């Protein structure tokens, strides 16, 4: 497959276009400082949801500890950028956070992913809590329950946008690579996958580690954009929030996660004037999606541009044929 084919070209144009639209809206003042915070939150949630979708959607394993890995990234970057308040420090934070999150995921994943069934959900539930408690008790390094403040404002929405695009492209390529195919075949039928010589534990672990690393990246952006982090931001509810985005968008659909992160983010802003009534409306929106479209907005399907092209070609061919007649 060529890198510069029609489909990829259209995706590139879409990405550049959405970047241009956002930039234009900011320049025109349509997106003010408050909405920019929303924008970055959406981008962070997008990265988190894409990562969790790699775990839940592709490998079929259930993780309830995504916020824990996010916390690792946030704290690694927070601590490092306070020492080195420049982009070098931030890059180092992203790398260190990613590595630590990856190692923790390996340690949790290798024993639990050898088992068939939802053991990962229970293990990750515990691990996220352990990470939070460790951070709470790391003394001056993490500043305990008060959390870190005064982290330099290094992230802009540009960085968020850039990293979201990178993570999305990476996950999309993974989905259609041979490793991704193997992972999906494990999800569909573990016995058949094993009988074809696919090492099931290995591919489940790869997906889990990838999800954990992307969560750490999202945490890094979070720390350097909001400047204040505390352990209770990364509690169980945060993991559930991310899970909601994945389920809302459709388990296994990357474009679904992108759309859901955006829709839920925007919905949150529009519901702001309703005060605490907001949570009820938010819940109603979620429940109605589950009733009318139980597989999520996109199901397991992707927003498929190449099929649009194909359809168009077909209809053009038909027209041509009719003319010939």
């Amino acid at each position, binding site marked *: 497959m060529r890198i510069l084919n029609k489909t990829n070209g259209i995706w590139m144009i879409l990405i550049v276009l959405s970047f241009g639209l956002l930039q234009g809206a900011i320049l025109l003042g349509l997106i003010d400082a408050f909405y920019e915070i929303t924008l970055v939150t959406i981008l962070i949630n997008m990265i988190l949801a894409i990562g969790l979708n790699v775990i839940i959607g592709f490998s079929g394993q259930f993780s309830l500890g995504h916020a824990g890995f996010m916390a690792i990234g946030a704290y690694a970057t927070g601590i490092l950028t306070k020492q080195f308040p420049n982009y070098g420090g931030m890059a180092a934070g992203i790398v260190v956070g990613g590595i630590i999150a990856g190692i923790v995921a390996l340690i949790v994943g290798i024993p639990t992913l050898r088992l068939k069934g939802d053991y990962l959900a229970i293990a990750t539930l515990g691990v996220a809590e352990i990470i939070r408690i460790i951070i709470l008790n790391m003394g001056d390094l993490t500043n305990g329950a008060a959390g870190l403040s005064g982290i330099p404002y290094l992230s802009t929405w540009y960085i968020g946008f850039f990293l979201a695009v990178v993570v999305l492209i990476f996950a999309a390529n993974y989905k259609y690579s041979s490793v991704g195919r193997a992972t999906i*075949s494990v999800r569909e039928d573990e016995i*058949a996958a094993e*009988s*074809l010589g696919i090492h099931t534990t290995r591919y489940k672990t790869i997906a889990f580690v990838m999800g954990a690393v992307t969560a750490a990246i999202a945490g890094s952006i979070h720390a350097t954009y909001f400047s204040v982090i505390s352990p209770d931001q990364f509690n169980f509810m945060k993991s559930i929030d991310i899970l909601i985005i994945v389920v809302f968008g459709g388990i296994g659909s990357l474009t679904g996660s992108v759309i859901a992160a955006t829709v839920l983010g925007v919905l949150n802003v529009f519901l702001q004037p309703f005060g605490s009534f907001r949570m009820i409306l938010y819940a109603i929106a979620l429940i109605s999606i589950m009733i009318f479209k139980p597989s999520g907005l996109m199901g*397991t399907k992707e927003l498929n541009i190449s099929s649009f092209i194909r359809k168009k070609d077909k209809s053009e061919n038909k027209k041509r044929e009719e003319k010939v007649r």
Partner: protein
Amino acid sequence: MLKVRDLTVYYGVIEAIKGVSFEVNEGEIVTLIGANGAGKTTILKTISGLVRPSQGEIIYQEQPIQRATPRTIVQSGISHVPEGRHVFSGMTVMENLEMGAFLRKDKEAIKEDIKKVFDHFPILEERKNQDSATLSGGEQQMLAMGRALISKPKLLLLDEPSMGLAPLFIQEIFQIIKKINEEGTTILLIEQNASVALEIATKGYVLETGKIVESGVGKELLESEAVQKAYLGG
């Protein structure tokens, strides 16, 4: 080609296979028949590395393989079609077949082999862009067999290909099995449907609660008293 010697398998404390020995020579169709719970599937899973034996040897092409991983076993040319129709739903028929080539790198030859599978199972070619979940039971069985063939097995392990199929479909599948064998693939077939299996088999073994109670040439075995009594219920 394949020698199983004194194979013993435990599930926890339960002894599922109690010292089974048999042999498969190159070019043969060998069948293990027996009722539910006789241990047929366990033997197959042990050969393909999904289950570990507690005792005994499995010698494949002069090499002991009872400690090898499923991956190396597949690479060495043993392909297992599990019981029931284990196709990857959500993937098309074509993608399913491509998964069979997971351990292969020779793209051109893979295309050739997919063509060959379509020769055996023309219906799969018709349905190649269809989600495999939408296939009928018989078609899914064909797909699972076709996928196993793509990994270019020297020895094909078939676990109850007739399960849940209409008699007409069973005949068709078994004719194809015979054809695949004639083209050079050795086959170890496990069946409950003893008469159909022994019809095409060169050699048969009768399994009863983890032990081999009778063996013989395919069609003769069908007549034997042991089979009639122990298995067919006559």
